[in-house]
């Protein structure tokens, strides 16, 4: 997914391009309004009103389909709800300006009810579920005739005036349509450039990493769906007034839903301006196709349309914004050559670490996967400022224990309690609660948010502490420099090396300023120098008072780092204590190397 993000610029060239882009978009928007006014033709008005309506719907859709990555093909539900609410209320003598908000309220309720159970579903399943909901809504609208007028639909009385949104002249309708487009764009832009936008995109890219970073993934997506539904419903109300006549088949229409998504796709899904560009480009093209081909033969223009759609998808998979971004990056100048700040900026002191009171208690954890007993009665305690090494052969159940320590898995029995900043002991139930209490974790398989820059990745962690974008950005930069990622701030996360990604993973967690840090094999697969750096890094982290549990296979690092190690084998703790003693324990040697070695 391309995200031509509107990040704050770092280099003058970037600022220039950014400004150029904004000017171009401003011109497109201005042209949308000015062209029909200048030409003054009713038909041109109609086309531009239509562009505004579809651009607005598509922009609203994009908040869910693009930012949150939930491909809804049922968005006509909300559009239809808005339209019906508006028309029903107008027939009761209530202005559509009020009906608009009533419709939006109903749509929000419907959106939450429909989406909540569906968020478990991903990709095509979510799309199919939304289609099914749409069909159900359509059939119900046909069935409940008293309310909806059934198949024959509903009309509005032709009461003229601003109050009723019905006009003889076209300018006021254009003003409303254009205004709605601006509102939708404004909301979409505001969401994208604020914390919510970061949370949504993080959730879309890597749901579990987002959860570990304290993002309430369900909450943010519900919020996105609610906003999107409200906007769609409001546009629906206006369009109903413009059409003056609504019926279930054209309101709760799958074709409309797909069309809305298509504009966003062709413009650039997940970008703020893509849906607008998609509508601006596609509406006139369909015009032309229909005009030139529609009269020739039934079906010809539909055929051409389908073929063009396939070609666009094949050759412009990232949409117009993707093409523009490629064009822009082609001229990109070399990024600023900021010196690579080496890690461990904080000088190491040789003062012995101060190990304090317990901060995390693990008691009697039990976990079964089917018939497999993966965790058996695991108990240990982590103290403040301590580095605890969690080691064991492959398949010992280390990551499973981590998942239970961070709320991603519920233990069958036993408990994980965490000392909160308030001095009380808590037993959190899910990753969000763990994060809120100051527990951060990394993942064995790195989980970068691919569509984001390094800076934005770290900002997702920083948002755990800060609400404002500027604060989070500052914190992220500071963390990045500390982790030696300073020069990569504006690079896409995907472009980093494995070592870089591991550091990014740690940086994102560090930006949360956790009190307890769970590190899952951050040293696996990186070279010797990097291992040494990582060891230094962990020690420097610990010196800030953070308690660490590290799963690690690199023994040299474990020995150097850990104050204490816990050895896990087949889901059970077989030894724990001082690292030097533990590695001499025959049980441990047996577990690692087999029985012969232990006896030798």
């Amino acid at each position: 997914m391309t995200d031509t993000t509107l990040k704050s610029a770092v280099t003058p060239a970037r600022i220039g391009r950014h400004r150029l882009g904004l000017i171009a978009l401003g011109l497109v928007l201005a042209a949308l309004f000015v062209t029909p006014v200048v030409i003054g033709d009713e038909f041109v008005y109609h086309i531009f009103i239509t562009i505004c309506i579809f651009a607005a719907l598509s922009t609203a859709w994009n908040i869910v389909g693009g930012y949150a990555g939930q491909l809804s093909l049922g968005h006509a539900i909300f559009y239809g709800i808005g339209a019906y609410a508006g028309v029903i209320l107008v027939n009761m003598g209530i202005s559509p300006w009020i009906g608009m908000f009533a419709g939006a309220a109903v749509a929000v309720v419907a959106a939450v009810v429909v989406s909540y159970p569906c968020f478990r579903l991903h990709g095509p399943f979510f799309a199919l579920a939304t289609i099914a909901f749409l069909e159900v809504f359509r059939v119900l609208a046909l069935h409940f005739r008293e309310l909806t007028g059934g198949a024959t639909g509903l009309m509005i009385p032709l009461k003229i005036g601003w109050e009723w949104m019905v006009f003889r002249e076209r300018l006021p309708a254009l003003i409303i349509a254009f205004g709605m487009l601006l509102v939708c764009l404004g909301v979409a832009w505001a969401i994208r450039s604020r914390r919510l936008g970061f949370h949504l995109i993080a959730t879309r890219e890597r749901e579990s990493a987002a959860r570990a970073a304290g993002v309430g993934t369900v909450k943010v997506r519900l919020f996105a769906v609610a906003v999107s539904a409200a906007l769609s419903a409001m546009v629906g109300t206006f369009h109903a007034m413009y059409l003056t006549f609504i019926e279930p088949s054209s309101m709760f229409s799958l074709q409309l839903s797909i069309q809305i998504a298509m504009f966003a796709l062709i413009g650039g899904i997940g970008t703020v301006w893509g849906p607008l560009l998609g509508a601006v480009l596609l509406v006139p093209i369909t015009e032309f196709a229909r005009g030139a081909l529609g009269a020739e033969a039934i079906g010809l223009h539909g055929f051409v349309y389908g073929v063009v759609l396939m070609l666009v998808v094949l050759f412009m998979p990232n949409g117009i914004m993707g093409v523009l971004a490629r064009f822009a990056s082609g001229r990109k100048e070399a990024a600023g050559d900021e010196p690579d700040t080496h890690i461990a900026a904080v000088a190491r002191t040789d003062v012995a670490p101060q190990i304090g009171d317990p901060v995390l208690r693990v008691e009697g954890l039990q976990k079964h996967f089917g018939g497999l007993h993966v965790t058996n009665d695991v108990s240990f305690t982590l103290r403040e400022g301590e580095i605890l090494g969690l080691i064991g052969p492959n398949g010992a159940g280390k990551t499973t224990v981590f998942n239970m320590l961070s709320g991603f898995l519920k233990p069958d029995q036993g408990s994980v309690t965490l000392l909160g900043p308030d001095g009380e002991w808590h037993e959190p139930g899910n990753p969000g609660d763990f994060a809120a209490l100051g527990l951060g974790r990394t993942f064995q398989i790195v989980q970068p948010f691919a569509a984001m820059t390094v800076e934005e990745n770290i900002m997702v962690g920083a948002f755990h502490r800060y609400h404002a974008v500027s604060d989070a950005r500052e914190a992220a930069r500071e963390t990045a420099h500390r982790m030696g990622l300073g020069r990569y701030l504006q690079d896409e996360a995907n472009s980093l090396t494995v070592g870089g990604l591991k550091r990014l993973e740690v940086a994102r967690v560090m930006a949360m300023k956790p009190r307890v840090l769970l590190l899952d094999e951050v040293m696996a697969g990186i070279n010797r120098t990097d291992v040494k750096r990582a060891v230094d890094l962990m020690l420097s982290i610990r010196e800030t008072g953070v308690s660490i549990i590290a799963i690690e296979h690199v023994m040299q690092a474990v020995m150097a780092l850990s104050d204490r190690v816990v050895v896990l084998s087949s889901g059970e703790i077989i030894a724990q204590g001082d690292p030097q003693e533990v590695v001499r324990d025959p049980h441990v040697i047996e577990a690692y190397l087999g029985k012969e070695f232990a006896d030798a």
Partner: protein
Amino acid sequence: MRLSFIMATAATAALITGSATADVKFGALYPFSGQLALLGEESARGVEIAVEEVNANGGVQGEDVTLVRGDAVDNNQAIGEARRLIAREGVKAIMGTYSSSRSIAASQVAELSGVPYFELGAVADEVTGRELQYLYRTNPTAEDMGRMSVQMIVDEIAPALDKDPSEVRVGIIHEDSSYGTSVAGHQERFGEEAGLQIATVQGYPASTVDMSSLVLDLQGRDVDVVMQTSYQNDSVLFLQQANESGFKPAAIIGGGGGYSMLPTAEAVGTDVIEGVLDVDFTQYTVDPAYAPGMEDFVETYREKYGEEPRSGHSLNNYVGAMAIFAAIDGAESFEPDAIVEAVEQIDIPEGETAAGYGIQFGENNQNERAKMMGMQWQDGKLVTVYPAEAATSEMKIGQ
């Protein structure tokens, strides 16, 4: 899934209005693309033939008529095209629209612009029930269809079955879009007024692929007469599945769409469709004496398009358009109010148009003399059997 296009056409009209000597323009707003294209096109042909005939006879108020097409592929587009016809082409009036929902949407635009709108083919009640000043409808409506089908039961079927109308059990089924729903609603209302026993009223989606449960339900209710308002696919499906379940009601009365078309009969087989009744616009099997000009129309049609008319839609649109043009010819000018005034004066008695029914606008600007026709499939052909003055054959019931 078919993605119908949302937007309006720009250039269609330009292609058609190529002749530069356009003197006075009228709009022809029909669905020329999309799902309804077939019969939309068929309807428009009727208006085209009318225009040719009018121009051959000296035009309207001495001026040649140019027809400007507008493609009403969906409601939003219908509005856009109406705007274009009015604002850009400057048409004096719009004729249309075959589809009721497009008609309702587009006529609101015309009303707000003060341009007369003549509906020649859409049947929904809502088209005329809106107190619009500039909208007139020449064709019979869903109400006429419902009334006619009930009349056929009361006048012909019940006596043939040797039953009192109150003893006749009726099942009403309909496709669940606006068309089927409104016809079925009238059938139910008129049926109740006539004292028929309405056993059930059931809708179904026109795209359905199985109607066996519906057939079993009707069978279980022991109905004498089934009234179905449908398109083609569901007409075929119902007739086949009813036949295969051994369901043989004394009469099946189809409503329009699929029942009037020859491919339907071919699809289900002439033996299966034998005796099935049909209420629809006037078709070409009507008694020529009752519908003077019908045969000439068919001949012109054949010449112009090189094929037989595909349905009665062209004929009915032709009749409406001819009457409107004749009235406008006698108007003082092309000003909307002059046109409306002239149209108000139309008074054509029954039996003097090519569709048989007369024309006079009454309440809500609806043609009060518009009538559907009752037809029946006999020996593989659709013949007109009701009312008696238009009939070419006897209705055969219970044979």
